[in-house]
């Protein structure tokens, strides 16, 4: 049997040692609770057969290498340096558990401490946690955290926040009576509508949640939004799910955000059909006791040597049970390690260069597409590496036409925004070459023509 080392002789010896005649005698499950018959599952496979079966499944998927992909919307196709997989494949990292025994977990602990520091540096915040599941659940946790801090109920989401993130917040907050409302976006600029905020923000508002850059790719004026939120005593939660933008854009902390959350998938984590990704959270020192998730701190051992351990555990479920800040236990530690290794490999100069490359490519494609008859850039705001176009035909048919030319031309956002029924969200990264972009423009022109 795979992965079970006992020989028949071992089994007999072990059964004898526990005083059981056979395995059924040993299993302390009453007869009336036993499964009658066998599990109806496919017969076990050899490793070679399994590999063949999985390759067959994999072959029925088309990858972002088989097509030119301009899909983003919270999942970005970036180049992952070889060092990343090399490090996260070290089984001392990936086969260990949460570092409850610090003496034999210093590797994981120091790596998380470094990751926390990097997240603080990128977001302009004081403290960060060890990770959360993904960007969407991180926003939900931030909303709950803001409610605990302010003692207020109302959570205000920008309609330009990723629709699946908004849905997640609503599910998470259901138990706490919801109180979630949305602020419309400006149809001209593609950013949160300032005028709508004035009536929506009030003294019951715990937080205003703004994506930066937002779902449409537009870069929000975070500073003035933070000022508006603060004027009403509410917190500003900034959400970033294209973390490469941190290499170019001012940090959420420097613009007045109180909690910065989002997804660091862009660094070191493969697309993998949507997960696992890497939720992050950072905040100001004064809010740390309301922050959910694991936190690693520096201390010393009994010889006075630098050491790291989990800390502030009294916020967590295993100590505080129903009074914990969150129910989170398992987080996404290995994804955080992947992100760290990628960012460390880039360094500041590399990160800035990568961000500039993404911006430059997106600007190139934006211009190329805007030159096509029947295509316009949908919103006037500046963008980073993702933007929304409006086309003259139904996007469904157009995107299908592009697929025939081996182009995944972006995301039809009508499903999320019925009013935006001619709109496609287009993402560009360093993975898209000039030739690919030229071919995309040419193909789109033909499909529309």
């Amino acid at each position, binding site marked *: 049997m795979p992965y079970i080392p006992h020989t028949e002789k071992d089994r007999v010896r072990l059964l004898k040692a526990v005083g059981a005649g056979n395995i059924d005698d040993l299993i302390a499950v009453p007869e009336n609770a036993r499964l009658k018959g066998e599990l109806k599952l496919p017969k076990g496979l050899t490793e070679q057969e399994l590999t063949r079966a999985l390759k067959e499944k994999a072959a029925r998927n088309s990858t972002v290498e088989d097509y030119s992909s301009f899909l983003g919307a919270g999942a970005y196709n970036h180049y992952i340096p070889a060092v990343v997989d090399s490090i996260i494949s070290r*089984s001392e990292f990936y086969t260990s558990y949460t570092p409850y025994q610090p003496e034999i977990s210093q590797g994981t602990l120091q790596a998380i401490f470094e990751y926390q520091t990097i997240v603080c540096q990128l977001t302009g915040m004081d403290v960060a946690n060890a990770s959360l599941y993904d960007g969407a659940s991180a926003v939900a946790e931030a909303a709950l955290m803001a409610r605990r801090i302010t003692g207020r109920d109302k959570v205000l989401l920008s309609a330009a926040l990723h629709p699946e993130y908004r849905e997640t917040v609503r599910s998470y907050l259901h138990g706490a009576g919801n109180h979630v409302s949305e602020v419309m976006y400006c149809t001209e600029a593609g950013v949160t509508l300032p005028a709508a905020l004035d009536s929506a923000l009030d003294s019951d508002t715990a937080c205003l949640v703004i994506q930066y850059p937002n779902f449409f790719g537009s870069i929000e004026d975070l500073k003035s939004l933070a000022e508006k939120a603060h004027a009403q005593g509410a917190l500003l939660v900034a959400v970033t799910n294209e973390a490469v933008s941190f290499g170019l854009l001012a940090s959420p902390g420097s613009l007045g955000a109180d909690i910065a959350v989002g997804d660091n998938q862009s660094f070191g984590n493969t697309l*993998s059909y949507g997960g696992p990704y890497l939720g992050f959270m950072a905040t100001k020192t004064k809010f740390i006791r309301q922050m959910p998730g694991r936190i690693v701190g520096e201390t010393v051992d009994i010889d006075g040597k630098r050491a790291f351990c989990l800390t502030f555990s009294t916020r967590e479920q*295993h100590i505080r049970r129903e009074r914990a800040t969150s129910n989170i236990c398992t987080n996404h530690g290995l994804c955080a390690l992947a992100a760290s290794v990628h960012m460390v490999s880039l360094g500041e100069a590399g990160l800035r260069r990568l961000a500039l490359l993404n911006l430059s490519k997106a600007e190139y494609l934006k211009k190329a597409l805007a030159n096509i008859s029947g295509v316009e850039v949908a919103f006037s705001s500046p963008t980073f590496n993702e933007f929304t176009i409006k086309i003259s035909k139904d996007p469904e048919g157009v995107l299908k036409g592009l697929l025939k030319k081996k182009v995944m031309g972006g995301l039809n956002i009508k499903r999320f925004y019925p009013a935006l029924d001619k709109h496609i969200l287009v993402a560009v990264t360093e993975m898209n070459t000039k030739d690919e972009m030229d071919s995309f423009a040419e193909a789109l022109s033909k499909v529309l023509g």
Partner: protein
Amino acid sequence: MGENGVKGLLLDEPLIFERSSEGRVGVAPAEFDIPEADPKGLLPAGLLRDKIDGFPEVSEMDAVRHYTRLSQWNFGVDSGFYPLGSCTMKYNPKVNEVACRLPGLSLIHPYEPEELVQGALELMYELEGYLAEISGMDAVTLQPSAGAHGELCGLLMMAAYFKDKGRARTKIIIPDTAHGTNPASSHLAGFKVVPVKSDGKGALSVEAIKAVMDEDTAGLMVTNPNTIGLFEKNIKEIARVVHSKGGFLYCDGANLNALMGIVNLGAIGVDLIQFNLHKTFSTPHGGGGPGSGPVGVKKALEPFLPAPRIKKARGKYSLEYVRPKSIGRLKAFYGNFSIMVRAYAYIRRMGGEGLKRASETAILNANYIKEQLKDTYHLAYDEPCMHESVFSDKNLLGYGVTTMDVAKRLIDYGFHPPTVYFPLVVHGAIMIEPTETETKETMDKFIEAMKSIAEEARTNPELLKNAPIKTKVRRVDETRAAREPVLRWVKK
């Protein structure tokens, strides 16, 4: 590094920031094949980034050495025996790691058109079916990212069910042996927790449930086998009590490794369960994740499952988003796909017969350790155990030695300590879960070490008090970490 091993090189390694040198790039990004844009012309000045003070800048080789050294201070399942109770630290098969890295499974975008990802959807659809069969449930969602996330999903579905029936329920019953995530998830889902005590034998009694179960109570969350490692023998009768008041029986599936092919949870009254793919189904724990926490439900709860659902019609797979009664979603996209691939690979490799053998062997191994150690360490409940057993430090307290000392001394013998001080109902608990993937020889060495430590406790307790002595760092000052928090590096 144990007494039976050799002490290796344990090199010191500074923080990555302390290795940094300004302007150094490890792996440079691609070259520009388009004109370089001018950010100043495109973005308002206030939105441009200043210098990132202290960001690490190292060579590729220095990055590799840094993380390689860090890894050497870690102990994983691949390093040695890891009997961490309740966590099911079984072997993480290498073929799983190869499988999830196949380009056709790793380089696919979640918003690709359905016709381009039929293989992925089929894999997920089949995995849902396997988990349903193993648990006796009618439908499974793969969306939750971890066990606690799955609990939240299940609890929100229960809440939605009662709301839909026109009468919301406010309470949930949770035994005192439960994992902390159970009450924390219940609170998050808006329920008031009604605690219930286990009886003198570590089990739930029908009477105790009867006394608290009413029509304001959504149901009971029970871990089975429970965290003492005992099968809840009264489970069928308890299910009847819960059902008679219209409630649901939620099973925390953290301990499912004891039940595959042995118990059909659906048949004995369980209405919903979360699976911890990172425990039962061999996916690695990753130093604290990522895991995956699918949830299985009986028919009555199926309409409330998160959206989207995977549908199969005429041999084609699709995603169904319009589900009016759904609780919505708990994350973006569909779940931790690459973890699902690993679990899928494991189930296909094992087959039904193999999974049953895994559970049987996990039980056999746990009982073996229990029998071998019960004359040396105090056994919390002297009953035949399932996949884990719980001891305590009761016999050692007279020597001034505690569970923590035993745990730390085990490290010097080359073993990862068991789970300690949990479950809370056992004072000084030592919870041992060997799993099915360990040999008798490995368990014998562990048993020998545990006995030797008990002897040291009597003859030379200082050895335990000072342990560990062979590790990178020795006992750490956790109080100082909380009192004088240093939670990030800051450039001096």
